[in-house]
Structure formats: C-alpha cells, structure tokens
C-alpha cells in the first residue's frame, strides 16, 4: 500500500471539515463577476488570432493564398503550415502495428484536409473583428475527395482512406480477452440475446469555449501560455516538442475555466499555434474559440457501436459475453490519449458490475472525416454500460423474468472480486444501491402509477441502470493499457508561512469541481487548522514539477491523496520541531487540532504553529540540527493496482407523449457510492450535472454529418442543449464504502452521472413502449422515433416487473 507519508498520522483531532458542506471558497469572486477567465485577460498590445478552416471534409490541399488576408485593415500577420514549420502532433500506444496505427496530426493542415473545420492557416490582427475579416479573405484551394463519414463507409471494402497507412480506416484493433471454450458456452446456453446499441456523436460542450493567450517574457526567458486546459503540464510537454524548444522555456498557466468535461483534457492544435505565433511576432496573441468553431471543429465524443451477444442460463445467470465494439474517433488520434482511449476502456471494463465468467471482445477505433474526438466525461462507460444494461433487459424479456431479478442474480457481491477482464474490484454497494433505488420508487408508488397510467393508455415507463466506474486510475492501471504516455500519479507541495497559513499545490485542475474548497477541507483536517488558513494553487506548471490534471474523476482520489499525504508530512515536521523546542521526544507530542502541537501527557504545554514557523524561518538557530530551515513538505500519490471503483444505481420514470414524441422525465433517483464524501453538496452537484449531460445524450444532443462530411450542428439552434425545463429535479442518496487505499477514503465522483443516465433513460423509454413491440437501442431517442413507436398497435410483449 503506497502511503507516502512518513511517520504516524499525528493529528489528534476529529474530522472537522471533511464531510461538511462548507461554503465554497471560489464562490465570492465568481458570483461577483470577478472570476478571471481567459478572455477576461487583455494584456497591453495583445493581438487576436482567428483560424482559416477547411470547408471541405476530405481532400488535397493544393494552395493557400494569404496575400489578400495581409491586405485586410487591422491584420498584422497570417501564417500557414509552411510558414510556421512546427513538428506534428503524434500520440502513441505501445502496441504492434496490427493493433495500432499512429496518426501524424499537423498543427496546421499540410497537404491534406481531413474534416470540416480543420485549421489550415492562422490570421493575427489588432482585434477579433479584423481577424475574422482576414479569415474571410483567405483563398484556400482544396481538391475535394470522397468523404468517409460513417462506420459503414469507413469499413466498406475499397473505401477511400483517411490516412494512407491506416488500412480499412482502422487506427486501433485490439482483441484483449477471449476465454477459451466460449463458443461452446454459447452453443449450450438456454438463452442467447443479441443487442445492437449505438450512441450518437456528442459535444462535451463546456460553456466557456477553448482558448489560449501566449506572450513572451524576457525576464523568465519563457513563453507564458495561458490556456483553457485540464492538463497544463501535458500542454507544456507537447508545445515544447512542437516548437522544438526546451520544456523549461514554456510556462503554462490556467485561469478560471468554464468547464471542460474532457474536451479540454487533450491538447488542441490551436493552443500550439498561438504559442508559436506569439514567439514569432514577439507580441501577446490571444485566441478565443467561438461557438461555431467549438461545435464543429473542436473535439467531439461518444459515437460508438456495440454488437453484444450474451449467453444466459434458464434462471437468468449470465454465462458469456461476446462483444464487437467500433468507436468512430474522427480524423486524428488526440494527444496524449490516442484513439485507443475509447476501445481500450470498453475492452477492459465491459463486464461492468456483473459476474461474467467467459468474455471475448474485439474493439476498434476507426478514422473518419469528422472532427476528432476527446475522452468526454465517462469515456466509453456510458456506452458499454448501456450495452450491458440493454442485455440485462433483453434477457429478462426473453426469459420472462423481472429485469431487476436478472441484475440481482448477476451482480458482483463478494469483494474484492477479480473479473474475467483481469480487473480487481474493491468493495462497493452494487446490490445495496439497486435495492435502495428500487425501494425508493416502490415506496413512492411509481410502479403503481405506471400500471395505472398504462390502463389509461398513457406510456409511462421505469428504467434502471447499475454500474461502477473506475476512478482512481493509477499509473499501473494505465500502463496495463500499454500507453506510452502514462498518467497516474500526482504531486503536492505544502508550505506554511510565519502566520501559520499554508499554500498547497496540486497537479490537478479545478474547472468547476470545487477543488479550492475540498482540497482545503482535507488539509485543514490533517493539520488541525481553519479552512480559511489554506490556499490551493494549481494550474501553473511553475508551481509543481509535474501533474496530470483533472480527468477520470482523479482529482480527489489521486490529487487529494497527494495533498493529504503532503499535509501529514508537514504535520510530522511541525511535531518534530515542537518536540525539540519542548525538549521531549517526537512520540511525546501530537497536533492538537487547533493550530498547535501539544504534549500528550500535558495538553497545557502547547506550541502554536506560528511559533514553530517563527523558528523555522526567523530563528533557525533554534531548529534541531538535522532539520532544514523552512516549513514545507512534498508528497506524491499513485493509486495502486487496478485503482478504485465508485458505483451507483440510477432509476428513472418517464412518460412518452403520443403526438409530440416528447419524453418527459417524471422522477429521477440516483443512489451512489463514491466512498468518503468530502463535501456533500459538491458531490450532489457533480451527480446532478453529470446526469443532466447523460440525459442530454439520451434525448437531445447529436452531431450528425451528411454524406459530404458537413456537420449538422454549427450553432445552438441545431445543437439542442437541454435547459432547466428539460432536466428534472434529481434526488441523490449516498452509500459510503470508504476506499481502503486512497488517503481520504474517497473514490471520485465526477463522471458517474453521465455514465448512468443514458442507459437508465433508454430503459425507461423502452418500458414505456413495452406495449408497442418496439425496442430502442440507440441514443439520442428522437421524438419522431417515439411518435412512430406509439402509432404501432402491436400486441404487448410480456414484461414482468
């Protein structure tokens, strides 16, 4: 168990801050309009960048004329790929060529364009209006070629190739598990179900679009790149490589950020261009993505197709699972995760919360002439969970069983459990969360309501979704997927000043998750000080040597553990100095929970931190001989083994309206277990926000492409983001299974809502349509589909619930 803290935890006091919904420390500035978001920063002399983008999905780039651009009033400069001469972005997996084909993504398109919106050139002007005028003046010559826009066109024999060296337009093709004898299991099974599930292409859609601001600082001999990113250190690494400079010469900082949801956990080409142009011009250069760019040319997500076969016993026990997964990753692999992120996630985690004894999976990432994808909140889990949950429902129908009984028969209940996927699950409440979700709806009378509604001819349905999500991904877990850039650890440094206040750093990145508050709660409890005495600093590559940012619900599990461990070390140091000052041994003293160190045997003898700090800095002659001046401690944390798993059950009641096809959500209940809850309000907020995004994917949001590769959604008129009237009130109940190996017992809570909601809603819709004979296995569920289903007057198929 990697507990990086040396010595015993010395804090004597009980938890005072953790577990309490203290007021958020980030709120006062944000509600006053005093947040500092990227576009709020206008350094003197700043120039504005805008991108010339391809209007063609696929073709040869035969010429770019930027002379007319340079003639536009206000335009200062314009550059194409040849002008900037930057190294390509290449993200790699440590896998043989038959499993993985890397793609070179030029920072600006060179020779070829591969999707509508691909950046071809950059225009820099005195203001953003002039920059856009300049973009309009650019002359780009592209010889259009046939576009590859779907799984069918990509995999068709003789299909045009998006990348010349990716045969069959396939970037990743892995078969990670194949239990011996699985075909016999299928042959002998009492029941085999086949489910074909698809999820539409979505936009993670942070409300603040992407953006970057770069300026050269002579004094630091550094380019300061301020950017909207979840992963500042990885931006620095890649920017340095593309610009072919030492990493030291780039500092990446992140101001307040209006959401990320994964879209900002990969490095954007535009960020690199802005950095390069600012260096070249020796002027500050800013780029703020507009919404049209964000919808069409930013990273998209989610488009996946699962063909799942499952074998069951007559009593509903699952015997085997055989899956073919195709993920449409768009035109390029993202950095640092590659196009492998989605198929590898699906392969490793697909059996989900169920005991599946035999498992075979093939998972592919295909490339198409669409905007590339990033790992949006949940990463393949919404998709494979949907496939599994549809399998459970389908088996129940075929066997004439209650779908909840089928789930219960198969849920993992004995922990730790090692699955056929070679993953070890730590203890959770898979069964208990389902029981509680069901009894909640039952006690509220929803099952009765549904049946009475059916008798009146109304289409009301109830749906469930059970899932777990791995959250504490350490480097072992990522390395198992054979990534060459292996995330996992985080580092924290904590420093106390002479007033007894501390500044704690973290390699994670707050963009709505309340880190400034929750990390401070952790520190305050560990040291026994007031939360007001703790300040978190993050999002600055100069403050900490390396960090992995915020994604995969890792901030509290991994980052928070590093923060906790560093705090413990500082506590040990404080005790050590105090013991020396009291002339006793370290074992004789402990933190008193009130900002001081006391003698265990005589609490009246106490030294406040301020006094210890005074010695550490101003009278270092009084320090023990083997203690260095200063009061700081550093610790790192890396989740061991397979990491930890949060889990939940979602239960939802919907009514499908004939005529309009509207799916109205009448009741949404979430029962979740993310281990120790640091801040209940924040966890509830993460659940609800995630569920809202999951409902969006289930019912509203989709980017489609026409046969020429033209995206359907270029504004909020075409891309339907649900508002307050589409998202219901949501109850969140907590079960708490503390994680044994994170420092705080926390398991992470960022993604669950998004994972559970699509399947729960889809199951509810199917339940509402049960009398029609129609079963839906794709999201988003379009009103038209619901209308058509309700027009069918087929005999009811039997469901037993």
């Amino acid at each position, binding site marked *: 168990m990697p507990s990086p803290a040396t010595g015993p935890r010395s804090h004597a006091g009980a938890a005072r801050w953790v577990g309490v919904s203290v*007021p958020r420390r980030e709120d006062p500035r944000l509600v006053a309009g005093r*947040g500092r978001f990227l576009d709020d920063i206008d350094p003197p002399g700043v120039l504005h960048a805008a991108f010339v983008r391809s209007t063609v999905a696929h073709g040869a780039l035969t010429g770019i004329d930027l002379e007319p651009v340079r003639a536009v009033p206000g335009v200062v400069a314009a550059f194409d790929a040849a002008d900037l001469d930057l190294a390509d972005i290449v993200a790699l997996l440590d896998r043989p060529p038959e499993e993985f084909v890397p793609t070179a993504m030029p920072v600006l398109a060179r020779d070829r364009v591969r999707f509508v919106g691909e950046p071809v050139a950059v225009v820099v002007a005195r203001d953003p209006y002039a920059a856009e005028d300049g973009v309009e003046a650019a002359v780009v010559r592209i010889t259009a070629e046939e576009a590859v826009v779907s799984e069918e066109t990509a995999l068709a024999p003789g299909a045009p190739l998006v990348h010349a060296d990716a045969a069959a337009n396939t970037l990743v093709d892995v078969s990670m598990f194949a239990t011996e004898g699985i075909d016999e299991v299928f042959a002998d099974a009492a029941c085999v179900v086949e489910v074909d599930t698809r999820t539409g292409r979505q936009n993670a859609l942070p*409300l603040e679009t992407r953006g970057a601001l770069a300026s050269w600082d002579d004094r630091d001999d550094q380019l300061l790149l301020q950017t909207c990113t979840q992963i500042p250190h990885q931006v620095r690494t890649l920017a340095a490589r593309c610009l072919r400079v030492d990493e030291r010469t780039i500092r990446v900082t992140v101001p307040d950020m209006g959401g990320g949801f994964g879209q900002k956990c990969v490095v954007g080409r535009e960020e690199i261009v802005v950095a390069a142009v600012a260096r070249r011009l020796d002027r500050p250069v800013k780029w703020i993505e507009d919404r049209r760019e964000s919808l069409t040319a930013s990273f998209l997500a989610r488009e996946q197709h699962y063909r799942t076969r499952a074998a069951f016993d007559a009593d509903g026990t699952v015997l085997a699972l055989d899956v073919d997964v195709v993920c449409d990753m768009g035109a390029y692999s993202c950095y640092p995760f590659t196009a492998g992120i989605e198929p590898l996630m699906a392969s490793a985690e697909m059996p989900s919360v169920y005991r599946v004894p035999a498992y075979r999976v093939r998972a592919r990432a295909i490339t198409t002439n669409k905007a590339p994808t990033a790992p949006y909140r949940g990463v393949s889990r919404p998709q494979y969970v949907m496939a599994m949950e549809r399998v459970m429902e389908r088996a129940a129908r075929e066997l004439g069983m209650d779908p909840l009984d089928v789930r219960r028969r198969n849920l993992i209940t004995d922990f730790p459990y090692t699955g056929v996927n070679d993953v070890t699950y730590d203890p959770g409440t898979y069964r208990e969360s389902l029981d509680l979700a069901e009894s909640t709806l039952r006690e509220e009378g929803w099952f009765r309501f549904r049946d009475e509604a059916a008798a009146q001819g109304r289409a009301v349905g109830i749906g469930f979704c059970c899932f777990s999500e791995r959250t504490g991904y350490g480097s072992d877990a990522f390395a198992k997927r054979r990534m060459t850039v292996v995330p996992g650890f985080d580092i924290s440094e904590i420093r106390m000043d002479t007033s007894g206040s501390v500044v704690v750093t973290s390699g994670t990145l707050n963009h709505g998750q309340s880190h400034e508050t929750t990390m401070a709660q952790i520190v305050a409890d560990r040291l026994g000080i007031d939360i007001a005495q703790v300040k978190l600093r993050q999002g600055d590559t100069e403050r900490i040597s390396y960090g992995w940012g915020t994604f995969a619900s890792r901030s509290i599990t991994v980052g928070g553990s590093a923060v906790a461990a560093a705090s413990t070390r500082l506590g040990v140091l404080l005790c050590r100095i105090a013991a020396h000052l009291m002339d006793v041994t370290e074992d004789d003293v402990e933190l008193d929970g009130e900002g001081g160190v006391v003698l265990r045997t005589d609490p009246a003898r106490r030294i406040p931190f301020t006094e210890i700090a005074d010695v550490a800095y101003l009278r270092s002659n009084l320090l023990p001989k083997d203690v260095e001046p200063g009061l700081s401690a550093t610790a790192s944390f890396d989740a061991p083994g397979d990491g930890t798993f949060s889990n939940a059950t979602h239960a939802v009641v919907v009514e499908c309206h004939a005529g309009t096809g509207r799916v109205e959500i009448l009741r949404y209940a979430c029962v979740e277990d993310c281990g120790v809850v640091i801040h209940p309000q924040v966890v509830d907020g993460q659940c609800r926000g995630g569920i809202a995004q999951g409902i969006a994917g289930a019912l509203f949001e989709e980017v489609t492409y026409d046969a020429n590769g033209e995206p359907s959604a270029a504004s*909020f008129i075409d891309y339907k983001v649900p508002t307050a009237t589409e998202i219901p009130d949501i109850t969140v109940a907590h079960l708490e299974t503390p994680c044994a190996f994170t420092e705080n017992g926390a398991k992470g809570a960022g993604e669950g809502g998004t994972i559970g909601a699509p399947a729960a809603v889809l199951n509810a819709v199917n339940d509402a349509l049960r009398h029609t004979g129609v079963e839906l296995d794709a999201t988003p569920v379009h009103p038209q589909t619901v209308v058509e289903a309700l027009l069918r007057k087929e005999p009811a198929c039997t469901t037993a619930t």
Partner: protein
Amino acid sequence: MHDRHLITLTVNDEEHEVVVEARRTLLDVLRHDLRLTGAHAGCEHGVCGACTVLVDGAPARACLLFAVQAEGSALHTVESLAAPSGELSDLQQAFSRHHGLQCGFCTPGFLMLAEGWLAERAATGAGEPDREEVREVASANLCRCTGYQTIVDAIADTARTRLAAPGETA
C-alpha cells in the same frame, strides 16, 4: 465597416464615453473597452444567456445588441449587484448557499436574468412563484455544470425571502 462612433453609455450608474465601430457588440464594449468582464460570451448568438445584462431593468442579451443601440439606456451588469462594501446581494448569496454554480461561467448571466425577473415581479406585486415558474424563467439560459436544480433553488429562495422581507433587497 470601419466607421467609428463616439457614444456615451451609462453602466452601473456611471457614464462612459467610448469610440466604437458600428458593428461592435455591447458585450465586447462592456468586457473589453470598459473592462467589466462579468458578463461572458458563451455563444454570441443569443441562446446561452451567459452575456445577460439589464437594459433599463430588463434582462437582455448583450451579444445581440450593438453598443451604439444601447446609448441612452440604463445598463446594469453583474458588477452592480454587490454593495460597494463588497457585501454580496441576497441573490448572490443564495447562489452560493445552494451550490447554484460550479465553474461559475454561466453564473453572471443567471444572476442578471433572475435579478431582472425578480424586480419585475416585485413591481407587479406578484406573490410567491411556484417552482415551475422559476424553472420556466431559468430555462432562458444554459448551464452545463449544475443540472439547473440548485439554480432554481437559489432563485426561488430569493423570491421567497424578498417577499417575506421587502425592502431588504440589495
């Protein structure tokens, strides 16, 4: 397109003179010329509401107005809500208390939307709003983080307390 106009804008009860191109939006003038960066640009096409400010007391999308159109109007931005002492208004406090914000990017827009609506209701002497009514109002703006429930809570709570103790509003 490059005609310039000298205009006077009254923002948060202060007068400002600015020279603007006719095509420059009110949002850009507030944010970049007057440095009132509270109102945000989320879409610049009138859907998300992140840019909401009060124009003569009524919520309006600053991205859909040209600055030249706002001359002669009384404009209020989120920066006007807190007292000069820095004390946050009841509405701002309610957003924080109910966890009505996560990233906070949509928050100034929601605050101004709610502020305008609450003031208008108070002027018409309306009673306590029901939750569905608040939800309806909140549906004018987009939030990507919260799932809206806590925003609705914060606005409904403020409506209630203002009715209970009129005159104590910020």
